[in-house]
């Protein structure tokens, strides 16, 4: 007997499959089973019109209104009035499958927008005045941020841009030990990892002293650290002076050597408070090695690598932080540190680590960060302040990447912080291209951001720095022309 031929079987099979998928598309939109969030599956959705999102009815004090937030009414008060961004359409199953699997769905090129500083820009005049005299007196900038500036990212290109414009060849402050040494492009940093005990601001039960970089290293004996120039940033090609900041030193000496020359010894100062030890290179050096031979010899904060005056930008990256705990840095030590550094400008770039929580308590974050700015103003009393708004962060809506709605909420909160703390605000989100811009940064050629749709890569960090530096330089030029 001839074997049965099943060649019409696929018709019934696929008809059943399509019918079942059709039935599934009528299941409730969102469900939870055993705590797992399940998503809606609709095979026909690509033939339907995108669903209109329900209108919000309640009035939200933190509703993002773009840079129109800063518009002033006739009496000069910030109005915060203007239209709200439109919401994004529904989920498209075909788009979902096609775009995810092809990995090449067309995405528009990034649309950068030059953004000027907003908020209280008058207080920027201290910084602008100092920039004018940068050739005579060093202009120091503190760039505080989270992992977005880890490994000197963004900071290094702001530094590069400002140094090209106003002079300067110094990388600035570095910690003694650090986790980001592998991708730090501006300094080759190495240290004896088993010879240092490092405590940072997150876990500091003994309340060890700290300054602006938020960590302290304690030598275990025979401890060393080395810094060397790299070929990547031609401007930063030598060290003339290396300054060490520390406190609570025992009566003892450290050894140092430039470019592998025989080590020299120098005594630490046992006075209380933040101490500065200046090591001068006999000639501009490519490398410096510092040794702390004695266990528990001092609480060592950081070093500053310098090659003359001009603009110096210090990178203070607080991985995983929201910025709120900067008030844990002891005020007196910060003030003493500033006595050496004399900061002209403080940049604050936080937000990524509060995005997930911002919807719950926006007012709380607003209040805490205003306190932080007030605290830092006490520490750096003359400095100008600018808050950089959070960058766009991708969020999957169906299978499309859109702006995380919490980013908008956070931006509104950050604008409010800048307003309440009376400092300047720079809107990175708008500079990136505004709504849904992160996807275009990730898919740009070459890519500008990482595929976590959150962090920038080297090229993207360069772009962010370029956009921000342009805002500072424009502000400077405008201030100069006014006078």
């Amino acid at each position, binding site marked *: 007997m001839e*074997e*049965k*031929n*099943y*060649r*019409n*079987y*696929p*018709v*019934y*099979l*696929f*008809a*059943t*499959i*399509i019918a*079942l*998928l059709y039935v*599934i598309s009528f299941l409730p939109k969102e469900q939870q089973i055993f705590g797992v969030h*399940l*998503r809606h*599956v609709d*095979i026909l959705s*690509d*033939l*339907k*019109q995108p669903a209109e999102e329900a209108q919000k009815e309640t009035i939200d004090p933190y509703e993002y209104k773009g840079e129109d937030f800063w518009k002033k009414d006739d009496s000069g008060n910030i109005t915060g009035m203007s239209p709200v961004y439109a919401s994004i359409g529904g989920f498209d*199953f*075909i788009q*979902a*499958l*096609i*775009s*995810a*699997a*092809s990995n*090449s*769905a*067309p995405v528009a090129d990034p649309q950068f927008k030059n953004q000027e500083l907003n908020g209280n820009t008058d207080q920027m005049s201290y910084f602008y005045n100092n920039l004018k005299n940068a050739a005579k007196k060093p202009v120091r900038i503190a760039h505080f941020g989270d*992992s977005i500036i880890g*490994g000197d990212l963004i900071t290094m290109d702001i530094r590069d841009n400002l140094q090209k414009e106003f002079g300067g060849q110094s990388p600035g402050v570095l910690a003694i030990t650090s*986790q*980001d040494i*592998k*991708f730090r492009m501006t300094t080759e940093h190495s240290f004896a990892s088993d010879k240092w005990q490092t405590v940072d601001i997150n876990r500091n039960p003994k309340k060890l002293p700290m300054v602006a970089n938020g960590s302290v290293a304690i030598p275990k004996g025979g401890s060393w650290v080395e810094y060397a120039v790299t070929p990547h940033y031609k401007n930063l090609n030598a060290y003339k002076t290396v300054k060490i900041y520390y406190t609570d030193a025992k009566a003892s000496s450290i050894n140092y050597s430039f470019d592998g020359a025989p080590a020299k010894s120098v005594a630490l100062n046992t006075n209380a408070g933040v101490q500065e030890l200046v090591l001068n290179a006999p000639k501009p050096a490519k490398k410096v090695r510092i040794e702390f031979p004695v266990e528990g010899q001092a609480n060592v904060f950081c070093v500053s690598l310098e090659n003359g005056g001009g603009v110096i930008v210090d990178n203070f990256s607080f991985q*995983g932080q929201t910025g709120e705990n900067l008030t844990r840095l002891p005020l007196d030590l910060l003030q003493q540190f500033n006595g050496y550094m004399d900061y002209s400008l403080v940049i604050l770039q936080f937000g990524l680590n509060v995005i997930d929580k911002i919807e719950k308590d926006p007012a709380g974050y607003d209040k805490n960060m205003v306190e932080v700015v007030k605290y830092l103003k006490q520490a750096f009393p003359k400095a100008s302040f600018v808050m950089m708004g959070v960058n766009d962060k*991708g*969020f*999957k809506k*169906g*299978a499309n*990447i859109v702006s995380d709605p919490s980013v908008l909420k956070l931006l509104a909160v950050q604008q409010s912080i800048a307003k309440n703390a009376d400092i300047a605000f720079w809107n990175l989100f708008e500079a990136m291209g505004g709504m849904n811009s992160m996807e275009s940064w990730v898919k740009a050629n070459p*890519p500008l951001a*990482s*595929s*976590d*749709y*959150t*962090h920038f*890569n080297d090229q993207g960090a360069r772009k962010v720095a370029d956009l921000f530096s342009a805002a500072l330089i424009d502000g400077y030029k405008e201030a100069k022309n006014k006078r």
Partner: protein
Amino acid sequence: MPDVFERFSELLVYNSGEPLIFNSSFFLFFFFFCVLFYQFVVNHKRARVLFLMTLSLYFYYKSSGFYFVLVIISSIIDFVAAKWIVATEVQTKKKSLLIFSLATNLGLLGYFKYTNFFIDTLASANIAQLDFYDIFLPVGISFFTFQSMSYTIDVYRGKLDAEKSFFDFLFFVSFFPQLVAGPIVRASDFLPQIHKKIIVSKADIGRAVFLIAAGLIKKAIIADYISVNFVDRVFEWPGRYTGFENLMALYGYALQIYCDFSGYSDMAIGLALLIGFKLPINFNSPYQAASITEFWRRWHISLSSWLKDYLYITLGGNRNGKFRQYVNLAVTMLLGGLWHGANWKFVVWGGIHGLVLAIEKFLNFPAWVGKNKITRIIGILITFHIANLCWIFFRADSFETGMIMINQILFFFNGSILWQFLQGYPYVTLLIIVGFVLHFMPPSTEARMEKFVTSMPLVVQAIYLVAIVWLVAQVKTAGIHPFIYFQF
């Protein structure tokens, strides 16, 4: 309602950047349409061929627009060349016809795939500075040119008769299941099937459902999820991660590329079975290989056997002494590497594989691992890690990035973050484990699972596939896994 039609007609035309892939819902309707109307023509050979050929060309049009004419042009040239090769008795004339056919195919492939690569290479070697051309890479060109080349070479070698009907031949070259990503089907395997009566057995159906399901799981669940949520970002920036994470990403990539590629092949084989055509198996659990020699008998089999039969043997194979054999091996592997993409990194990748193949031959390694179970396990572990080492350079954007990755694994391992890793990436870890466990199943288990699927009634098979499609949709729309920094 007009909007629906408008949207529908938009879907029907070519849209750059949206190739028609099997795991899209448009393809579901496309294939349903195919099997439905196939019933009316299945018993008439000419009608059946014309129907499937038209659908195949449409499928290609959906993926690459009007470049589908390339498939037709390439087919005309090879069809005519083969006819004339058979017609003439003069050996030199046969040879020049073959060379003409090969030159056309390789010329098309070279122009579309490698022009900018050569311009870039000339520029970086400071030989000449030329501008890049804006050249569209037609989907699947590497596959269909190799398919039709196998045809003319086999005809020239007298292993195959020239095909009488042009439409039969065009159907073979353009057959949609394998058109875009293989397997590379030999004319000698496929052409005879065209003339036979179409018979689909119950076992064929079961195998097809099994393969389509397996392919969806591999490609659209495992590969897509672990790449987007973990592997890609480590390869993007290995310096930001510990050696442990780098190693996990590397193992993850080994699984990802296998699942991606073999999953697509599985779906192609399954779909072809449903309309009564048998395509050759393309992957046979490659990481079960105990030597790189064996690896190439299990990895992308249709390509490696193609390279062996048409390149390695043509170069002389092992007939001209040991030294020539090594040279032939190296040339085959270097070109095989280059076939994967227009980039020197693929050449390096092929080169390392070629070198290891030569060393294995020299040491008689495959014989040693065949001694007993223990030597075989040792061989599997060594082979897996050599393959992984090669994947680093296959995947990394630059040689430098690859070296950073190796450096992190060797000198910054930090295995202590294991527990944090498991907590931070539960789904990624689960999918990697499930993927490798399935991969190392013995063939008998796979056969049993296939048999089980075959025994299911139609409705259950449909529910099984729907459940997987539903899972695929869940994975596609899952939120982006947040970036994680581990404290170490």
